[in-house]
């Protein structure tokens, strides 16, 4: 992509026809070398046009070669001027062509910064940015921005002509894999997208996602780049989600809801979610705590995420740091019967390059706490799906979704448990327990990754790593916080170490690890041995 600060690359024009200045053809270039450009004045419509360049009135061209030479001279003079200092110009008019369906104001909203340019250099830079923004709307097959001279009676002005070609085929589909932070597992998703149905740059999509841990989600979403003058795009998503936790915690979760993305920028994200959630137990084997949680709940929550990710790669970080903090406040309706809770989680990752074999040390800590609020909150239990569960097959080095997993521990494989219902018919497992998760969770990891000394592996990006991690969850609600002590929490930290091979592919990052469980407790589902973990970047 072009560096907007540079003077554009100049190459001799290969077309004999004079063309207006086209920002799409600008190449990457450093410095002001005084190279030549194929920018030429557009003088086809008007004669005596001296426009931007303040050149002498051009006589009617007598031959193509003469026109070409004259244009080249003008360009050189312009670039000389641009080298010495800003060439003052302002935008007189922005002309939009080619949009049959898309509303003008959608395109104009993206071009606002053109109105503030004061020089040629700024205009070139702004044109590049506008080009990128329009392409990012995903509703155009191509975007071409042309700089033309303004009306002859207004010297020092330019017109910007934006030609767009709307997508010929608005329907597109894709299949993708990614790791959902909130859901804590990897999913495969198939989606259909319909672009620009109403001409507001609206993107509609329907998707069906299947998660590794037996969850299915059917959802439909809408993305609006400009909604009633709001600064950032608005997204809305209606979903039907079903998650099966019968094997781990003896309940199934069904949710039907709507989530609205209210504000989204590079570092901040605010979303509102309203959902009807039902927990059921078709197996009728749940433990006492889970039985009490079964039923319907109205979830109305606001979620704020602050994210800084300065790592050089989400799949194999070798340098940089990342910090994510997520705050979720539930119970935002006046109705005190909706679910009221406050959930806070954070992740910190730091990668230090070691300088040999592309080795790097990755450190990470993650923590989270959830608490109900309202009358008598200290004796109320927290809602089961909002609690923290540790364990699973996601790579903890890459995942930034709060404390979610430890190498070697199975899904929901550690933490407080409660015995399941016992039935005297001989077939039920007498030692069956439900994993209840915790209100406070903490994990820490250290990972040393390095290339293998074989060329084939290096070419494919396959590398090795040695790792260690520790983590724990604890219950704080229902007055358990009175019995909580940091010393006890640290003493009951589970930990594991291991070594493995990392295989990054186009779809996901796969780790084949040998994990040795250093410390676990009675009911924890963890085993020393070979395990596979995955991570797919969202």
């Amino acid at each position, binding site marked *: 992509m072009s560096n907007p600060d540079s003077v554009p690359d100049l190459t001799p024009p290969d077309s004999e026809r004079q063309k207006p200045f086209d920002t799409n053809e600008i190449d990457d270039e450093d410095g002001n070398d005084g190279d030549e450009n194929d920018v030429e004045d557009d003088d086809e419509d008007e004669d005596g046009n001296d426009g931007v360049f303040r050149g002498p009135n051009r006589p009617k061209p007598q031959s193509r070669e003469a026109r070409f030479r004259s244009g080249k001279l003008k360009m050189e003079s312009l670039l000389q001027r641009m080298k010495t200092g800003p060439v003052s110009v302002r935008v007189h008019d922005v002309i939009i062509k080619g949009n049959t369906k898309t509303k003008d104001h959608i395109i104009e909203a993206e071009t606002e910064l053109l109105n503030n340019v004061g020089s040629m250099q700024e205009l070139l830079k702004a044109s590049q940015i506008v080009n990128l923004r329009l392409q990012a709307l995903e509703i155009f097959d191509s975007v071409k921005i042309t700089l033309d001279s303004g009306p002859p009676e207004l010297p020092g002005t330019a017109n910007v002509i934006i030609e767009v070609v709307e997508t010929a085929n608005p329907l597109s589909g894709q299949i993708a894999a990614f790791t959902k932070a909130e859901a804590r597992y990897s999913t495969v998703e198939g989606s259909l997208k319909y672009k620009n149905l109403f001409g507001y740059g609206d993107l509609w999509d329907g998707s069906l996602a299947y998660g590794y841990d037996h969850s299915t989600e059917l959802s439909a979403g809408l993305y609006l780049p400009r909604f009633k003058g709001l600064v950032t795009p608005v997204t809305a998503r209606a979903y039907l989600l079903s998650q099966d936790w019968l094997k781990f915690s003896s309940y199934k979760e069904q949710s039907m809801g709507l989530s609205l993305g209210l504000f989204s920028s*590079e*570092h901040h994200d605010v979303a509102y979610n309203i959902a*009807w959630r039902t927990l*059921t*137990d*078709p*197996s*009728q*084997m749940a*433990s*006492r705590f889970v*039985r*009490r949680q*079964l*039923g*319907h*709940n*109205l979830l109305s929550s606001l979620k704020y995420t602050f*994210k*800084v*990710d*300065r*790592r*050089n*790669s*989400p*799949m*194999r970080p*070798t*340098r*940089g740091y990342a910090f994510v903090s997520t705050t979720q406040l539930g119970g935002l*309706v006046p*109705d005190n*019967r*909706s679910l009221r809770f406050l959930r806070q989680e954070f992740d910190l990752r730091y990668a230090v390059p070691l300088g040999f074999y*592309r080795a790097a040390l990755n450190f990470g800590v993650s923590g989270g706490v959830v608490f109900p609020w309202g009358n008598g909150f200290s004796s109320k239990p927290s809602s089961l799906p909002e609690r923290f569960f540790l364990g699973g097959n996601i790579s903890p080095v890459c995942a930034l979704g709060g404390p979610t997993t430890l190498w070697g521990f199975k899904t929901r494989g550690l933490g407080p448990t409660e*015995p*399941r*219902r*016992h*039935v*005297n*018919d001989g*077939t*039920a497992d*007498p030692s069956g327990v439900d994993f209840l998760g915790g209100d406070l969770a903490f994990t820490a990891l250290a990972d040393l990754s390095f290339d293998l000394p074989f060329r084939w592996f290096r*070419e*494919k*990006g396959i590398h090795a790593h040695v790792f260690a991690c520790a983590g724990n969850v604890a219950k704080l609600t229902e007055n358990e916080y009175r019995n909580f002590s940091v010393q006890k929490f640290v003493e009951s930290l589970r930990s594991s170490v291991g070594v493995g091979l990392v*295989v*990054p*592919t*186009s*779809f*996901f990052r*796969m780790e084949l690890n040998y994990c040795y469980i250093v410390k676990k407790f009675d009911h924890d589902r963890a085993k020393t041995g070979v395990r*596979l973990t995955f991570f797919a*970047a969202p």
Partner: protein
Amino acid sequence: MAQVGERESEELTLVTTKPYFDLPTACPLCLPLFIYLKLAHFPFRLSFNSIFPDSDQIPYVESGTYVAYNNENGGVIENLKRDGIVDLDSEFQSVPDWVAMKAMISSWLADAMMYELWVGSDGKSACKIYYSDLSWPIVKVLFLKQVYSVKQHLGITKDNAEQREDEIYKRAKIAYGALSTRLGDQDFLFDDRPSSLDATFLGHVLVTLHALPETSVLRSKLLEHGNVVRYAEKHKTKLIESSSSSSGPQFRSVPSSSTPKRGPSNWSSKPKSQPKREKTEGEKTFKRRARYFLAAQLVVVLLFLSLMGGNDAGDMELDDEDEGNAFD
């Protein structure tokens, strides 16, 4: 079994819907069980689940890891009998009238109550009994779902609505008459000793008298039988209002040595799937292995496509210097 035996004795807890209308629980399915335990002088703790009104598992009793759900083996009372915990009916099974009375209460009166709560009256009583702790949008949807389900169960359509209503009320009236005659001036229906039918009938009568609106047709039919009303109020005073809390000073643990037989599915609720215990170990292992096999195949195929087809994965970015650009 050893697990429960070794554990110290735990009190029996009854889980029902919330109290309302001056009753410890106003749900016509839950109140009979409460009264049954009271009649048997069996100490228990009362606990509530107010967010799952459409569950057919409620009411249930629990003690340690023992649970008896409403939708298993004919109901909680049958479960308690079967498991040897509480049995008030051991001598009444052979009484000729027993089966007829039981059939009348469990079908005609139960249907009449269901109809009156959800269709006959304006539904306000039902909403207070079941939905007082749920948010408005959920209440609306659950209510409509329940009304539809009740109409399906009772076979009510637009065409036969009036006839079905007349039939339901007529049967209720017959049942009231028969039970009133059976009761006479006694304290209980059979032999002046409490039975599960007393519990069920008392539950029905108390909910009809206290929870249904005064305009209710069913309620007015019941009020014609003074002896039934007196019988209900007398027991209400004795069992419900006199004891301040339902947990007694001593607790009894649930005997763990009995082996409950699997009986027919519950008569009053929709048949739900039995707990998934029927699969043999071999089948489960086979399915698990098949899943792992398929997953392994998929992973190998994806790896092959990615690695052999040329790798342009994100690793290439690692060679670039840090441009200070943030990654999403």
